[in-house]
């Protein structure tokens, strides 16, 4: 149960943190249709995050931070608002700043393709709850990937400016891709138990999909010398709670009201 909980936190934190970043586009998107679409994607991921954090809390209540006696804060909120950055288990790609629409589109293409591959396998999880979350998630994330893929090709073949921006976006996103396929011991354990997926097993598939989109767009993936992979910190990455400098800032904002009112009802 501890493995299941830890695994759900990983996927849940990916969804929560990325949903937060996407929600920052609200009222700032290039057009109303995209404002609505990005909010939809953020809402889907927020929904997944809530189910996954709740599953983690149910599987192993000890993962939930303790709050003052009598606090009405539910477990999903205790997990979202009362953990520090080092306790978050998301990959670093989802916490990175939005950048312009080209960066956000490129990142969404990568994250959605990867998450879709994971969720597709999780529809076979031995945990019934996770299975149900995955079945729902596959539909949602398929839409996310298609939305990003359409925009990616549009920007690549739109104007000289949009292509220039997309080319500049690739080396900002690609250095965090390798981390997506790095297996954390808890992921290996979850995979061994049949509840989770070892991300290394979706590496080829995800890269093949990305290569296909890049080919359609007429672009190459950045080469590893110009845009080297971003390495671990003290041997760890996001899954170990080793994040970039941006995450603690993101959480300072996200958690400020909740933390000011540990006994609050909302």
């Amino acid at each position, binding site marked *: 149960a501890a493995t299941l909980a830890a695994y759900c936190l990983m996927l849940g934190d990916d969804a*929560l943190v990325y949903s*937060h970043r996407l*929600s*920052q586009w*609200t*009222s*700032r*998107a*290039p*057009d*109303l*249709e*995209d*404002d*609505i679409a990005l*909010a*939809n994607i*953020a*809402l889907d991921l*927020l*929904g997944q*995050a*809530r189910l996954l*954090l709740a599953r983690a809390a149910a599987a192993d209540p000890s993962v939930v931070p303790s709050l003052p006696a009598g606090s*009405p*804060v*539910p477990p*999903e*909120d205790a997990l*979202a*608002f009362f953990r520090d950055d080092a306790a978050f288990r998301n990959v670093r790609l989802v916490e990175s700043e939005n950048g*312009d*629409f080209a960066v956000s589109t490129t990142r969404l293409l990568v994250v959605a393709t990867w998450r879709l591959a994971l969720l597709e396998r999780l529809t076979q999880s031995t945990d019934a709850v996770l299975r149900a979350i995955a079945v729902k998630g596959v539909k949602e994330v398929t839409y996310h990937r298609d939305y990003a893929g359409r925009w990616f*090709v*549009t*920007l690549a*073949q*739109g*104007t000289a*400016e*949009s292509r220039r*921006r997309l080319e500049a976006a690739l080396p900002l996103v690609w250095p965090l891709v390798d981390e997506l396929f790095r297996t954390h011991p808890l992921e290996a354990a979850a995979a061994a138990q049949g509840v989770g997926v070892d991300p290394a097993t979706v590496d080829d598939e995800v890269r093949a999909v990305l290569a296909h989109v890049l080919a359609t767009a007429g672009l190459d993936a950045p080469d590893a010398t110009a845009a080297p992979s971003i390495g671990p910190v003290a041997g760890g990455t996001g899954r170990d709670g080793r994040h970039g400098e941006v995450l603690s800032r993101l959480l300072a*904002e*996200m958690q*400020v*009201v*909740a933390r000011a*009112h540990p*006994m*609050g*009802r*909302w």
Partner: protein
Amino acid sequence: DGLAADFEATVARGDRIEPRDWMPEKYRATLVRQVAQHAHSEIIGMQPEGNWITRAPSLRRKAILLAKVQDEAGHGLYLYSACETLGVSRQELTEKLVSGKQKYSSIFNYPTLSYADVGTIGWLVDGAAICNQVPLCRTSYGPYGRAMIRVCKEESFHQRQGYELLSTMMRGTDEQRAMVQESVDRFWWPALMMFGPPDADSPNTAQSMAWGIKRDTNDELRQKFVDMTVPQAAALGVTLPDPELRWDEERGHHDFGSPDWDEFMTVVKGGGPCNAQRIAHRRAAHEDGEWVRDAALAFAARSREQVRA
């Protein structure tokens, strides 16, 4: 003149004018101004609440708030579409908004200073908007009326959510109750101003009512809103910040004080706490997105060519 007579008869019957029907130029111009202003209000209205999306104190509230702000973008979309049936493009309207040539509801020029404001905007601001808008569902121009039916349905959902947030907070801590009261203190008078100046100072009302673009006077709607809100405030346990507020048995209505109409005029003229900020935010989003919209147009044009070839 037959066209004008047909138009007058249609409006008088309470039937709808449709985009292809003949209409007086002034009717069209008045409608464009009104619908555009309404659309702009939805779009600018995303900002004060959007300000709290990244700080929502529970995941449930975050989802509710994000969905609400998304609905406002949707309302903006329908209303810009209704405007397009009158021959004005979204692009033109947006340029008028960001250059300050067209207005939006002054209420959005007030800042949101605590999470309680999300609830208060739902309860009071959406509540006032509904009072203004429900009659517009029967407005004479078809596309506008139909858009308003959908908008009103969603607005009343938002109003209930806002009220529910406040009512939950009132059952929370003392600090939360104080936050709610402070928020209501700030938004009460601006909400009353949402119905526009007193009837005596509202010269266009008569023509708009004759055309069926407007269905009630400002003061009638304001009274209706006060009468509706007072018992809700009592149920919440908040005090409305008006010492003159009391039930008038004879009139069967509440008496209430007069908003600060000087402040109203200051805000309308651009001197509200957030006018410049709201426009600057919208302009920045519009300008930052230009290259993306250009790319989409260029891509679509190229795809059409390829289909033809």
